[in-house]
């Protein structure tokens, strides 16, 4: 009799299971299922439509022999390195300055963070206009009398990526600053008291004590920005459409163009699998660092 009174374990917390169904389905079907599907079909001979004819690494072979793809990878590497270093350094310096019990802190924070509320499309279009060689910043400075002033990053193959960088940094550094500031506010006041008593200069305390203490904040920020950089797309579409020529193409745009405009699904899937691999290379050490010791049960 006793076992009959016990409720069936599958129906325990039934409501909670029903409530979690959308999450479980999303996890299984979208995040796991769709990713696996993409990786699998990146090995197929798919053209306009996916086909079940598997050809090994042929798509990857073609991908890395396509100049547009290698250019895209090179671009995202340059963009990524500069934007990571710059936004972390500048974001931290701004945060450290903001943490000096300054006046107008809220005003400054509002100013530094508002671009983050804007879309990449808006960001790209504004900077496209400011960097416009004939009517923008260059002309404004020349009108002041500096006739030889040249600032036409956006019009040249070798420099267009830095134009994207200026816009991207404008949009995202405030976010880094906000995260860093939250991290700095979490640093124990006693650290500052101790370093003041020992007569250690402030900048030394920042570099040798505070930054190592904020390792977690830095790593998390790094992972968030880096995985954002890999998917960079809207900014390029709005600002340069990949031009001049293919000079500012990026991987995410390669995927979109081959998937929807050129009807070459196989190439698009191989390209997105490479993007996935890159993100996993960033993500796995982080998961290991943050969660490796205390595995979720």
């Amino acid at each position, binding site marked *: 009799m006793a076992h009959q009174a016990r409720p069936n374990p599958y129906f325990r917390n039934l409501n909670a299971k029903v409530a979690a169904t959308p999450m479980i389905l999303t996890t299984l079907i979208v995040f796991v299922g769709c990713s696996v599907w993409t990786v699998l079909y990146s090995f197929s001979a798919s053209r306009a439509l996916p086909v079940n004819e598997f050809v090994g690494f042929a798509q990857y072979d073609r991908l890395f022999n396509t100049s547009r793809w290698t250019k895209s990878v090179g671009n995202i590497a340059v963009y990524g390195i500069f934007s990571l270093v710059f936004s972390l350094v500048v974001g931290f310096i701004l945060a450290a300055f903001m943490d000096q019990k300054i006046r107008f802190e809220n005003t400054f924070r509002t100013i530094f963070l508002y671009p983050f509320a804007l*879309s990449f*499309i808006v960001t790209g279009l504004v900077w496209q206009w400011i960097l*416009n060689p004939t009517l923008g910043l260059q002309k404004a400075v020349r*009108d002041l009398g500096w006739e030889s002033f040249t600032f036409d990053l956006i019009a040249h193959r070798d420099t267009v990526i830095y134009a994207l960088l200026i816009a991207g940094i404008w949009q995202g550094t405030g976010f880094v600053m906000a995260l860093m500031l*939250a991290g700095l506010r979490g640093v124990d006041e006693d650290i500052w008291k101790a370093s003041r008593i020992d007569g250690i200069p402030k900048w030394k305390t920042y570099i040798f004590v505070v930054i190592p203490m904020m390792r977690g904040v830095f790593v998390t920020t790094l992972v968030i920005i880096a995985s954002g950089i890999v*998917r960079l797309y809207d900014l390029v579409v709005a600002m340069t459409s990949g031009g001049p020529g293919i000079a500012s193409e990026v991987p995410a745009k390669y*995927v979109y163009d081959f998937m929807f405009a050129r009807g070459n699904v196989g190439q698009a899937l191989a390209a997105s699998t490479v993007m996935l691999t890159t993100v996993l290379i960033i993500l796995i050490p982080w998961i290991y660092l943050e969660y490796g010791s205390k595995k979720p049960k």
Partner: protein
Amino acid sequence: MSIEPIGTRPRRTFDPTRMMIYLVLAVAAIYYLLPLYVMIVTSLKGMPEVRLGNIFSPPVEITFEPWAKAWDTACTGLYCEGLKVGFWNSMQILIPSVVISIAIASVNGYALSFWRFRGAEVFFTILIFGSFIPYQVMLYPLVIITRELGIFGSLTGVIFIHTIFGMPILTLLFRNYFASLPQELFKAARVDGAGFWGIFFKIMVPMSPPIFVVAIILQVTGIWNDFLFGVIFAGTKNFPMTVQLNNIVNSSQGVKEYNVNMAATILTGAVPLAIYFLSGKYFVRGIAAGAVKG
């Protein structure tokens, strides 16, 4: 204010270090404000003035013509109906997406923090790490799925996609918030015989307005600013404002009207900017939520 500080009064003299700090912050502030200023002044000039003057000079003759044109008659390749079409499309996408995604994620976060069952945390962990996967990886299968469901290229389709991709961050947000509420509250309600939904609607929701505000801010800005999902899943008729804006500005035909373009750009940025300026500290909490680990 009534407590007197102990120790020597801080000197209120000229301090070069502090001057430098303010100087650096001021220069940075100018760099951040410049684009907003340029957008506004350009949008208020007539085209002859845009061509002759420079982008930083304030308008000699203020005109609202570019604003009217951007809203009402600007051309996106084929049609000349202005940005208003995109605005209403964005609204139609935004409202259901925000409501549905928050409804699902709040119940979900609640189930995860109070009604744990075996495997729940595993799914949740995969969901969070899955949110770092580039969207491009999941795009094509999602196109197939939405096509099979008959919602590809429709408002329902794009709402469906926004609901899915809002789930990781929102679930994380609600789970962490509910987990911070006292367990005794939940236990007491259980003893009184309240069930799953009873506790949620009568206790949890009334205690959580702040987190709902944060979630709304996060979703409104995120969905309004989306471009990729809109261009793929919404269908040509339902393009959101960002897509329309890009089509207006980057359409190759005709003479470029920079003043109209800038007015259109401000109009598209206006909704998230308004949310940002009105919400203040909630916005910071919302974006910082992305950095909080599970």
